């Protein structure tokens, strides 16, 4: 275990593994093309819980618990839980912590929080701190609608660029214990922390446009710091740029003479059947990248369908208040490089 600073924003690790990953999703996510990759699919958005907020909390807890169980380690061996969500005061993360009773580091980076947790967790372990860190994130469609948009039953028309907040949670158990050293498994190679990028987008119904420049900035700096290019990755997955955001990211690269099209995909675009499931631009939310990575991408790495993936979770850092006060939407993207050993 060691951590090396590769550049102004990138850190590389040795011997940091993902011991297990788990993803939990709502009914709509279960019906999507990645449904089979989820460990658990809820029969309804509420699943008998009293409110959508309570439901989101249990979605997160279930993913965390499944990841710990799949790794076959006791909860007591988790030295730190790093987790985030979208609700005010990180309600889901903190109330889940009331249940699991492990040291908790609550993080906020909007929908970019999963890679922030994964990268920070790996860094903490590699620095010789905790041995096992549980990195997780969750979002709930209905709870997010309530907080950021309108009441559920209020009728209104979504624009073609509007995103659909995913009801989903994902959790990865990251470890540096010597017991897992050696061949096999999936390693967390490096993290590039993003900076806040704001190119003047103001429409909260078009977060792809707001976040694409942040993703571009982080990916470029990741390549700069590591001396790599897109050919070194089987696939780059952005978090929730959606159909339109990925096109914009591709266009930004094209402008600089880089051809990213083939190796670029997006968790939000992959999560749903865009044409059939009426999700417009695709999925979004903290649980989107968390669940698509912990379910779909991690499984493909384990099966050796993929060797190396760059996961670039993207977050729009606005609040309903800043939007109403006429501010533009600042965005951030954190990238984590993951590799099959």
């Amino acid at each position, binding site marked *: 275990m060691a951590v090396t600073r590769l550049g102004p924003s990138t850190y590389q690790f040795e011997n940091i593994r993902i011991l297990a990953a788990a993803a939990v999703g709502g009914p709509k996510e279960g019906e999507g093309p990645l449904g089979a990759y989820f460990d658990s699919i809820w029969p309804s958005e509420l699943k008998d819980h*009293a*409110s959508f*907020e309570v439901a989101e909390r249990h979605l997160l807890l279930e993913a965390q618990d499944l990841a710990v169980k799949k790794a076959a380690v006791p909860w007591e061996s988790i030295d730190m839980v790093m987790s985030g969500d979208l609700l005010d005061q990180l309600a889901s993360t903190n109330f889940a912590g009331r249940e699991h009773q492990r040291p908790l580091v609550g993080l906020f980076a909007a929908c970019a929080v999963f890679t922030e947790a994964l990268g920070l967790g790996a860094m903490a372990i590699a620095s010789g701190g905790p041995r096992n860190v549980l990195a997780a994130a969750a979002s709930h469609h209905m709870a997010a609608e*309530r907080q950021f948009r*309108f*009441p*559920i*039953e*209020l*009728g*209104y*028309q*979504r*624009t*073609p*660029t509007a995103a659909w907040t995913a009801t989903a949670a994902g959790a990865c158990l990251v470890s540096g214990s010597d017991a897992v050293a050696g061949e096999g498994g999936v390693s967390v190679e490096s993290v590039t922390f993003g900076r806040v*990028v*704001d*190119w*003047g*987008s103001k429409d909260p119904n*078009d977060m792809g*446009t707001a976040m694409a*420049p942040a993703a571009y900035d982080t990916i470029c700096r990741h390549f700069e710091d590591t001396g790599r290019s897109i050919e070194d990755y089987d696939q780059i997955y952005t978090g929730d740029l959606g159909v*339109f955001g990925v*096109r*914009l990211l591709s*266009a*930004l690269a094209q402008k600089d003479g880089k051809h990213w099209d083939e190796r670029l995909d997006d968790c939000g675009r992959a999560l749903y059947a865009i044409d059939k499931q009426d999700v417009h631009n695709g999925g979004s939310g903290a649980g989107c990248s968390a669940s698509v990575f912990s379910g779909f991408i991690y499984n493909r790495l384990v099966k050796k369908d993929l060797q190396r993936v760059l996961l670039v979770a993207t977050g729009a850092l606005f609040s309903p208040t800043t939007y109403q006060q006429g501010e533009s939407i600042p965005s951030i993207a954190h990238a984590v490089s993951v590799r099959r050993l």
Partner: protein
Amino acid sequence: MASQAKQGSQKMQEYQDMASQMRPRKPLLKNALWAFFVGGLISEVGQGVEWFFMQHGLSAKEATPPMTVVMIGLGALLTGLGWYDRVVKHGGMGGSLPITGFANSMVAPAMEFRTEGLVLGVGAKLFTVAGPVLAYGLAAAFVVGLLRLLITGGA
């Protein structure tokens, strides 16, 4: 510390121009047609209800209030059943503008904030959507009323 706004306002503008060129368009004609027919259908139903009351002995003027009550009840019922949001999803303003849409904008927050209790939930949040419409609607009514008084005199 170099604020990025100063660094690249031209780059930002170019990007926003590119984005607005590439952005998928709203299906305006389709939306307008849906709004016309959904709004029209709701209005036809309202007219039918009004005729019903007129058949039962009310004058055209007297039949309007009970018709309004029935339509609001219908909008509230459809909202409670979870159907009215689908009406507006397709119908747009054709679903929002009629009085059934007003019912929807009252009942939806009432249902939503039930979990926060009857006082601070339902009571406080009931007008989150309809509030601005009511406030400015009443203000406009006062202005129009005043103008009418000034132009046409009392009576």
